[in-house]
């Protein structure tokens, strides 16, 4: 037996008093962690194969299985933590870059958890959203310099010309996740939930599958560095176009969909040969400056007759404020900023955990900069990168965002257990896989219901929190940082966030 330096991450506990050897766990595990022994009529488990996705645990009819984290087996060391040691063992063995999936799991500060929201007391009345109207409708696009209204015989009429914009029933959109990185059933769930709820999903760089074309009016299509699936009809049928420069989980890094995942269906959607690797270069090779970006923005606007908002997605990096300013000046109708806790299907672990800045600081810095330059109205800001709850959304809006993208949260709603093994293509929940045996596990009609449920719940909570603060329209909260207070934050953090510390009055 070869020397095994890395031990199992999990313990598979099987209560033999409860196990009925029905083999559901055996059939459900794509990692072959469970095996039926016909001689003994028992199920045996091999913990070293377990990735901790909890699929078997969820489907076991007698609750006989418990997946537990294996207790640390190294001597305590605050410097050489378990993760460092295990990674070195792995890399010494393989000589390769460590890959991972989903967003960073490192304990960096989550600023949402250090920000508290306000409520109305005595001097201003709070509002009950169940009894009084509450508006959370959101528009994404450039706003005019000023609104000119003219009076004619029939009443008042808007004289100013409004640019193209998206109308969202709630300030939440589904992040870019391509067909290829996730299954078609996952894409169908996102598309149909966006359609039924009156919001938008994003194709990522996967192209628009023929089965999803009837959701085109609720689709933001992406033009990324690989230009996969981009054609005239793709751009013109969508509701908006997003140029993807970067992704929060891996700023400065391109993408690579391995050839084995490029099935016939994906090949026709991406317009590349079947079985060929789909490589998205790290940069767009025609964009080396803001001027180049402006050319692409206007090329797309020309191609879509100036009828659709065109946005740019960037990851939150150190210079995000001037970069965002450049993007707005280049003519983007919205800027999507992806923070460093944002998710991914595959990224080098070193980059995911160490590159970029938290979305809260990036958002505050960008909103402040655009206001100072007097161009905040020229583009909407959509933020992404680990929005975990409705309260994260309300804080984001008060910090200056127009809307938020949710990716990881949406996948969790579909069953994802954050095992971070998306890159293996063996997702037991039928999400990050193209294996037909596994993709079947995500029934889009269930997926649509669950995603709509999440949107409904969060929208309701947003209304409750707005009402509590005495606000009856989300527009009145946008960029209103007086409604936020920091807790356990330093002066510099408070000043970047542009908020007072808890205890400081107006």
């Amino acid at each position, binding site marked *: 037996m070869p020397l095994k330096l890395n031990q199992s991450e999990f313990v598979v506990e099987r209560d033999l008093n409860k196990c*009925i050897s029905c083999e559901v766990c055996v*059939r459900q595990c794509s990692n072959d962690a469970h095996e039926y022994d016909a001689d003994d009529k028992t199920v045996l488990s091999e913990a070293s194969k377990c990735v901790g996705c909890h699929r078997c645990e969820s489907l076991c*009819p007698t609750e006989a299985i418990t997946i537990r984290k294996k207790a640390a087996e190294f001597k305590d060391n605050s410097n050489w933590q378990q993760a460092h040691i295990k990674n070195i063992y792995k890399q010494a063995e393989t000589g390769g870059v460590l890959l991972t999936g989903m967003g960073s799991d490192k304990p960096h500060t989550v600023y949402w958890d250090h920000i508290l929201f306000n409520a109305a007391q005595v001097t201003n009345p709070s509002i009950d959203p169940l009894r009084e109207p509450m508006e959370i409708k959101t528009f994404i696009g450039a706003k005019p310099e000023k609104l000119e209204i003219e009076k004619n015989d029939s009443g008042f009429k808007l004289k100013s010309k409004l640019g193209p914009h998206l109308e969202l029933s709630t300030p939440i959109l589904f992040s870019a996740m391509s067909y290829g990185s996730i299954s078609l059933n996952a894409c169908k769930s996102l598309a149909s939930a966006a359609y039924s709820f009156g919001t938008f999903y994003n194709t990522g760089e996967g192209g628009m599958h023929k089965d999803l074309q009837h959701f085109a009016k609720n689709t933001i299509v992406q033009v990324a560095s690989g230009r996969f699936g981009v054609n005239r009809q793709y751009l013109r049928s969508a509701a908006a176009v997003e140029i993807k420069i970067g992704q929060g989980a891996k700023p400065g890094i391109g993408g690579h969909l391995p050839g084995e995942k490029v099935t016939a269906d994906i090949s026709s959607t991406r317009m590349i040969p079947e079985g060929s690797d789909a490589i998205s270069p790290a940069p767009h090779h025609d964009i080396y400056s803001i001027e180049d970006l402006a050319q692409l923005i206007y090329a797309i606007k020309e191609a879509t007759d100036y009828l659709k908002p065109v946005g740019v997605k960037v990851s939150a990096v150190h210079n995000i404020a001037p970069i965002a300013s450049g993007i707005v000046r280049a003519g983007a109708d919205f800027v999507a900023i992806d923070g460093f806790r944002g998710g991914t299907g595959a990224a080098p672990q070193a980059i995911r955990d160490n590159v970029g800045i938290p979305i809260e600081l990036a958002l505050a810095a960008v909103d402040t900069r655009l206001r100072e330059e007097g161009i905040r109205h020229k583009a909407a800001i959509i933020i992404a990168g680990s929005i975990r709850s409705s309260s994260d959304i309300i804080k984001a809006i008060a910090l200056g965002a127009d809307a938020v993208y949710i990716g990881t949260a949406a996948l969790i709603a579909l069953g994802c257990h954050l095992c971070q093994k998306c890159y293996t293509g063996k997702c037991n929940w039928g999400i990050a896989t193209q*294996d037909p*045996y596994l993709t*079947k*596990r995500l029934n889009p009609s269930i997926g649509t219901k669950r995603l709509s449920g999440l949107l409904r719940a969060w929208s309701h909570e947003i209304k409750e929190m707005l009402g509590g603060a005495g606000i009856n329209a989300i527009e009145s909260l946008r960029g209103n940082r007086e409604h936020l207070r920091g807790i356990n934050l330093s002066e510099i953090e408070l000043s970047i966030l542009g908020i007072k510390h808890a205890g400081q009055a107006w």
Partner: protein
Amino acid sequence: MKKIFIDEQYCIGCRLCEIYCQVKHSKSKKILKAFREDQPGTLARVLVEEIGSNSFAIQCRHCEDAPCTGACISGAMAKNENTGVVICDEEKCVGCWSCIMVCPYGVIKRDIKSKKVASKCDLCFDEEEPVCVKNCPNEALKIKEI
């Protein structure tokens, strides 16, 4: 009448339908007891057919003109005129297996462990919803009025 429909696109081959069917038709109706103590065990009356990544669960279709009822020599297999459900009266069944020979779907099984009778889906007539439909984790089985 109500019939069970199968959406094979979303059958994940977990066979939970078979397990819950077994429990439902066991003596104790309790999952642990049914698999441990109720011996000899009960047969599942729904069957998951599987080839590669394709699978579907099939149970008695409760045919309008059910050939098994005609083939039955003892009058055990009969279609209830009111509900349309085809049921095998275990008291009358003599185990000649004529029904199995004529069933076009192969969904009648020989229950040789307990009584020698033909075992088939009874559409869980005493439940609000058949247990296979109720316990399918991916809604691949549905019951609809036709």
